[in-house]
């Protein structure tokens, strides 16, 4: 079994280990010195808004972008010198599908599998298995171009599995998909996790992060601002519940001073006021007791969105 520090590269305990990792483009640091460790078998998330440095980090891990500074090991190898050997054992789902749209579903899988040194017989069998997995068997010999966005995304994920990767990198896997397609994909990713596939997922969708990630880091401006499991982060950085108050346009500012002291913390969003309290119901009663009458109110559990708001002062999805 693996020990700390010196990992066996064939069976690493740490799938990814980065220390003071930096990526600069020109003078700008997209990733400004992060420490990150991903353990075997876990689903690890990078959560943050666009431009936070998530994709740059992913590209360094995928061995297609050399680091500007710091240390990085993927499968206990150095991406700088062992890029092809690392890439042989990982799967990549890019942010934008880059399937060969002029080929069929089956051909996309077979041709891609060959690049990993798999035999013809192997890719033929693997393509059948993966089309089953992606629920695309009935479109096997159709061209990719006219497929729906969800189908293309599923095919991209299936393609990334062609070499039975030990580590799967998913860059915003469900962005732009409808809820049904997202749930289907989440189900598939969970299935892969059960099979022991380590996953690294970037997303700016807190719901997705909560669904998929055992552990995640919140990134902002190239830095990691928090790390933990979704529930840990919520416990640490937010209250159990949140009371949302909506006021008619223009009245929010005036009402703020009347209720702000009712909660330990509050956030002002353009369209609503958030009061952080462990007991939302009691806080709402207190609001009403002061004669404040919002247009609508909502009591909900804290989410990663609230964590993000607390840590960065900004909303996750603009």
């Amino acid at each position, binding site marked *: 079994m693996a020990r700390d520090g010196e990992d066996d590269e*064939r069976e690493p305990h740490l799938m990814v280990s980065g220390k003071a990792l930096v990526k600069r483009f020109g003078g700008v640091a997209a990733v400004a010195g992060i420490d990150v460790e991903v353990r075997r078998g876990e689903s690890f998330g990078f959560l943050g808004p666009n431009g936070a440095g998530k994709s740059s980090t992913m590209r360094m891990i995928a061995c297609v972008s050399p680091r500007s500074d710091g240390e990085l090991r993927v499968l206990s190898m150095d991406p700088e010198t062992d890029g*092809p050997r690392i890439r042989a054992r990982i799967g990549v789902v890019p942010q934008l599908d880059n399937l060969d749209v*002029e080929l069929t579903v089956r051909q996309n899988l077979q041709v891609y599998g060959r690049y990993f040194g798999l035999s013809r017989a192997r890719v033929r069998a693997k393509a059948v298995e993966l089309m089953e997995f992606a629920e695309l068997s009935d479109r096997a010999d159709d061209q990719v171009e006219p497929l729906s966005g969800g189908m293309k995304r599923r095919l991209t994920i299936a393609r990334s599995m062609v070499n039975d990767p030990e580590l799967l990198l998913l860059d915003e896997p469900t962005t732009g998909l409808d809820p049904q397609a997202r749930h289907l994909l989440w189900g598939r990713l969970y299935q892969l996790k059960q099979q*022991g596939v380590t996953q690294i997922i970037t997303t700016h969708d807190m719901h997705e992060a909560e669904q998929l990630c055992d552990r995640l880091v919140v990134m902002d401006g190239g830095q990691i601002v928090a790390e933990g499991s979704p529930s840990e982060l919520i416990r640490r950085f937010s209250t159990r519940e949140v009371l949302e108050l909506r006021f008619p346009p223009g009245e929010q500012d005036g009402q703020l001073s009347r209720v702000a002291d009712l909660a330990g913390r509050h956030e002002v969003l353009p369209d609503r006021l958030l009061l952080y309290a462990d007991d939302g119901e009691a806080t709402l009663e207190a609001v009403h007791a002061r004669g404040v009458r919002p247009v609508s109110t909502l009591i909900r559990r804290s989410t990663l969105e609230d964590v993000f708001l607390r840590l960065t002062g900004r909303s996750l999805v603009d």
Partner: protein
Amino acid sequence: MPPVRRSTGTVVPTWRAMWLRVEGHWAWYRRYWRSSLYSSGIEPLLFLAAMGLGFGSQVEAGAATGGHEYLHYVAPALLVAGATMSGMGESSFPVLSGFKWQKDYIAVTATPITPGQLLGGQLMWLAIRLTLSGVIYGLVALTFGAWLRPGAVLVVGVGVITGLACAAPVMALAAATYDEGRRFVVMFRFVMVPMMLFSATFFPIEQIPIELRWLTWISPLWHGNEIARAVALGGADPLAVAGHGGFLLALLAGGVLLAKKLFYRRLVV
């Protein structure tokens, strides 16, 4: 602890990696070969019919054609000119698309295949296509009676080398192109077409004014045409052929090195 997974992926040796790209192109080509065969194989044939037979019927064999009939004079050069045009064409928008629109280069370099191997595969695939269309052209030209000696078989090889020598720098250009590729249209108009017309494809270099002749000298197509005629018609100075070949190989090597550098710059950022 979750189960231990072992990936089935391995790193393939460079030549094999390049060949796998050829396989990938083939998967596409065998669906679309008709249209692409037209542009690379049939087009030069139309030229051969129009220029060699049609226009050629008005040209008397003389000093300018080395004493040969015009069909025999123009046939080898048309093969090389066709290879040059498809080499440059195939290396412009299709290569840019790999980076920009289709993004298949990005997909491929996420696998163990490196950008250098990707480029090698692209050149290898082009070489195969140029060979194929050259052979088809050669066979049809044979039925026209365009070939005088068995050595003419080598014209196909000359076409491939010349086509690749012109293609490699264009691939480099494509790798350095981030816009919609308007520069290719400029290149077709102001480099490719003049090159085809003034590289002693249709008439000897002696007809070009001495002050402008340097433009022909730097044209890779002219060097290809000279070798092609040497092997197809015979009676050439081996030293001159070696010189022309050296020019083409130097251009090819320089183009490949530059393209490799720019492929890495584009794909590893």
